C-alpha cells in the first residue's frame, strides 16, 4: 500500500467523522449555519446592489456628456481658459478616429457667454460640437425632446436643455443672442436659432448646457480651427485602461497635450464610490465579525463538551494535531453549508431584484443627485455572489483556530476525568 493512499483514507475517515460530529447537535449546527446564511444573503444582495449602482453611476455620468477619456491642452482641466486650445482639433480627432476605430471620438470647444432671449438673459456655458460625431460620445443628442439635434457643422443653430429653455422662455425656432469673448479675449457675439431642446433628467445639464456646431463656434469665437477637448467613449469601461497607453503615444507627438481618464475628469465620482465602499465594508465587517463570534462560541462549546471523548481518543494514541484538524474540518463543513445555502438563497433573492428592480422610499430624490434612475438593478455576477460569502467563510475558519488550539493543552488523564 502506498503511503499516500493511506493518508487519503485517513482523511476520508476524518471527513466522515467531522460530518457526523456536526450533526450530533443538530439544533446548534443549524443555528450557527443560519447566522452565516442570514449574513450571506444580506451580503450577496448588498454587494450586488452596490456593484449595480456604481456601474450605473459611472455609465450614466460618463455617457451623458463627459466621455471616458479626454484629450486636452495641459492645464485646461484645472483652469479652463479660453486660450488653452488644441490647435487643428478636427485633424487630430480624425487621426484618433482612424487609429482607434473601436472608440467614438468627438471634438469640442467651450466658452462662457451671456445668452439672451427676448425676455431673459443668463450666463452659461456653450459647447461647440461635431454634429456627426457627438452622438457617439454623449447621450444628449438622443435626448432631444423637441425639435431636432444639430446636423450642419456650420449652421447658426443651438440645442439647449429643458430648464434653460424654460428660464429663457424660448421654444424651438426662436432666436437667441450670445455675448462673450473669443480665443484671445476679443469680443464675440452671434445670433442662433433654437434647433432642439433636450431633457436629460440631470438638473445641472438641463440648466447649464447649450450646444452649437463646432464649425460655427470656431468662427464666432475666433478659434481658427482649434478647440478644447476631444472626448472618447468606448463600449466597455474596462477597455479604457488598454487604450490609454497607445493614445498617449499618439497624442504625445504634440507635447502640450495630455490624455485624461474618467477618474481624473470626474474625481467626485470615483471618490463618492470610494467613500460609499468604505462605509459599506465597515458594515459588512461588523456583520462578519458577529458571525465569526457565533462560530467561535459553537466550536468552543463543542470542543469543551467533548473533553472526555477527546481524552479517551488521545489516550489511544491519536495526536492533538489530528484532533485539531478534525475541529477545523468540522468548522469547514459547517461554513461550507452556510456558504452554499447562503450564496444560493442570496443569489435567488438578488436575481429576483435584478429582474424586477429595487427601490426604496426617497430613492428618486437621491438618485437624481448621482445621475441614476430611481430603480436600481443589482449586478448579479459570480464575483458579487461569492465575494461576501467567501469572506464570511474565511473568517469562520479563523474563528475555529482558538477552539482547535485548546486541544493541544489537553492532557488525556485529566480530560478523561472531566464531566
Amino acid at each position, binding site marked *: 500500500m502506498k503511503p499516500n493512499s493511506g493518508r487519503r483514507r485517513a482523511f476520508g475517515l476524518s471527513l466522515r467523522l467531522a460530518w457526523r460530529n456536526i450533526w450530533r447537535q443538530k439544533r446548534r449546527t443549524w443555528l450557527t449555519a443560519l447566522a452565516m446564511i442570514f449574513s450571506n444573503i444580506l451580503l450577496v444582495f448588498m454587494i450586488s446592489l452596490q456593484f449595480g449602482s456604481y456601474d450605473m453611476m459611472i455609465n450614466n455620468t460618463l455617457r451623458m456628456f463627459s466621455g471616458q477619456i479626454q484629450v486636452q491642452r495641459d492645464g485646461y482641466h484645472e483652469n479652463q481658459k479660453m486660450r488653452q486650445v488644441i490647435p487643428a482639433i478636427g485633424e487630430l480627432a480624425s487621426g484618433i478616429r482612424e487609429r482607434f476605430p473601436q472608440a467614438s471620438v468627438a471634438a469640442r470647444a467651450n466658452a462662457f457667454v451671456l445668452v439672451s432671449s427676448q425676455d431673459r438673459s443668463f450666463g452659461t456655458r456653450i459647447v461647440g460640437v461635431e454634429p456627426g460625431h457627438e452622438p457617439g460620445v454623449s447621450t444628449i443628442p438622443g435626448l432631444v425632446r423637441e425639435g431636432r439635434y444639430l446636423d450642419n457643422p456650420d449652421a447658426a443653430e443651438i440645442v439647449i436643455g429643458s430648464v434653460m429653455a424654460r428660464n429663457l422662455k424660448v421654444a424651438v425656432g426662436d432666436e437667441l443672442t450670445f455675448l462673450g469673448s473669443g480665443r484671445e479675449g476679443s469680443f464675440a457675439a452671434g445670433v442662433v436659432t433654437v434647433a432642439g431642446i433636450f431633457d436629460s433628467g440631470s438638473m445641472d445639464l438641463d440648466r447649464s448646457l447649450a450646444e452649437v456646431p463646432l464649425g460655427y463656434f470656431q468662427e464666432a469665437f475666433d478659434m481658427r480651427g482649434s478647440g478644447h477637448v476631444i472626448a472618447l467613449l468606448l463600449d466597455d469601461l474596462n477597455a479604457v485602461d488598454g487604450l490609454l497607453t497607445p493614445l498617449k503615444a499618439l497624442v504625445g507627438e504634440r507635447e502640450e497635450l495630455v490624455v485624461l481618464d474618467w477618474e481624473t475628469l470626474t474625481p467626485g465620482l470615483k*471618490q463618492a464610490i470610494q467613500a460609499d465602499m468604505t462605509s459599506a465594508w465597515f458594515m459588512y465587517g461588523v456583520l462578519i465579525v458577529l458571525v465569526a463570534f457565533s462560530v467561535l462560541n459553537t466550536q468552543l462549546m463543542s470542543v469543551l463538551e467533548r473533553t472526555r471523548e477527546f481524552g479517551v481518543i488521545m489516550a489511544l494514541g491519536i495526536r492533538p494535531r489530528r484532533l485539531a484538524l478534525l475541529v477545523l474540518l468540522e468548522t469547514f463543513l459547517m461554513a461550507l453549508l452556510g456558504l452554499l445555502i447562503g450564496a444560493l438563497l442570496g443569489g435567488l433573492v438578488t436575481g429576483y431584484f435584478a429582474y424586477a428592480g429595487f427601490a426604496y422610499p426617497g430613492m428618486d430624490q*437621491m438618485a437624481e443627485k448621482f445621475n441614476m434612475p430611481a430603480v436600481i438593478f443589482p449586478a448579479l455576477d459570480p464575483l458579487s455572489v461569492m465575494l461576501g460569502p467567501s469572506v464570511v467563510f474565511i473568517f469562520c475558519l479563523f474563528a475555529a483556530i482558538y477552539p482547535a488550539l485548546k486541544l493541544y493543552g489537553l492532557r488525556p488523564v485529566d480530560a478523561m476525568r472531566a464531566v
Partner: protein
Amino acid sequence: MQIPVKAMSKLAWRNLWRNYRRTLIMLLAIAVGAWAMIFMTSLLRGMVDDMVKQGIRALPGHVQVHTAAYRDDPSVNHGLPAPDEALLEVLGGEQVQAWTSRLKVPAMISSEYENRGVLLLGVDPAGETELGFDDGDIVEGRFLEGADDPGIVIGRKLLQRLETRLGKRVVVMSQDPDNAVADRGFKVVGVFQAELESREESIVYAGREVIQRMLGVGSDISEVAVLGRDYKLPEPLAASIRATVPADVEVLSWLKLDPYLATMMAVMNGFVLVWMVVIFLALSFGLVNTLMMAVFERVREIGLMRALGMRPAAIVYQILVESLMLLALGLLFGNLLAIGSIIPLQDGIDLSAVSEGMEMMGASSVLYPVLLWPDLVLANAVVIVLGIITSLLPAWRAAQYRPVEALGRS
C-alpha cells in the same frame, strides 16, 4: 406561588458564569454589536447633520419668502417689495433668530481675459453674516461693509478662473426688468473660500443697494431669508410668516426648498433602524444558541427544580433574567466602547482624500460624529426588547420539560 425574585436573580447570575468562556464570547459579541450600532449611527448622523447645515447655510435660512414665480424663473421681474410692517413684526419676533433680504439674479462676470456665468447676490453684509456667511472664510481682502458698498466679493476658484486679483476690476452683466443688458464695473474687494468648490465658482456678493440701482428695480428684492430657532421645526415659523404676506407670495421651509436634504434626513432615520435590526439579527442566532446550550446542560437540574415544585413560569423567568443580565452587561460594555471611540473623534475625521466625492453628496471633507440620546436609547432598546423576545424560545423550551423525563436524562 410567588416567584422568589431575589433568589432567582442570584441563581441566574451564578448560572451565567458557570460557563464563563461562552458567556464572555457572547458578551463580546453583544458589545461589538452595540458598539457598531451606536458608532455607525453617530457617523451617519454626523454626515447628514453636516449636509443639512451646509444646505441651510447655502440656501440660506430655515424659511424663505419669494414671489410664487421666482423659484421656477429666477428673474429680476419676479421681485418682491421690501418687507412691509406686518412682515417686519413677525421677523422681529421671538421665533426669528435673524433675517435678511437679498437680491439674487443670474449674471455674467468678466475680467479682461475670461468670463463666467454666476449667481449675483445683492446682500446686506450684516444680515448675510448672521445667516451663515462666515467672515473667517474671507481669505483675501474683506467682506462687504454695507448694503451700499461698491465693491464685489468673489470665490477663490472664480478668481483663478477669471485670472484676476484682489483690487482689480471686473464687469458684471445682468438684465434689467426690460431685458436690456445692465452692466457695471466692480472692484474685487474680497475673496472667499467655501467648503464646496462649486460655491466658490458660482456665487458672487455685492451690496444690495448697488445692485438695486444697477438693475433699476427701486427697493425690490428677490427673497427674504429667515433663520429660526430650531432647524428641525421650520414649519411653524413658515406658517406665521405666511399669514402676513399676500397669496401670490410663496413662503417655504428648507424641507421644501431642498427636497434632497429632507429626503436624506428621512431616509437616514429609516436606515438607522434597519441597521440596528440587522445587527441584532446577526447577534440573535448566537444569543439563542448560547441560551439553548445553557438550557440543555441543565436539563436534569431543571427537572429537579420542577420536581421540587417550581412552576414552569418560574423557569421561564429564570432563563429570561439570565438573558437580560447577559444583554445588559454586553450593552454596558458596548455603550462604553462606543462613547469611548466617539469622544476622541470629536475634532472630526479627516476625509479630504475623498473630498470631491463628499462634495458630490453635499457633505464637507471633515466628518464630525454626532451622538444623539434618542439613537443611544434606540440601540439599547432594540437589543433589550428583541433580545428578550428571542430568549422566549429557549426559555419556553426549558419550561416544557416534564420533571420525570428530565431527571432521567444524563
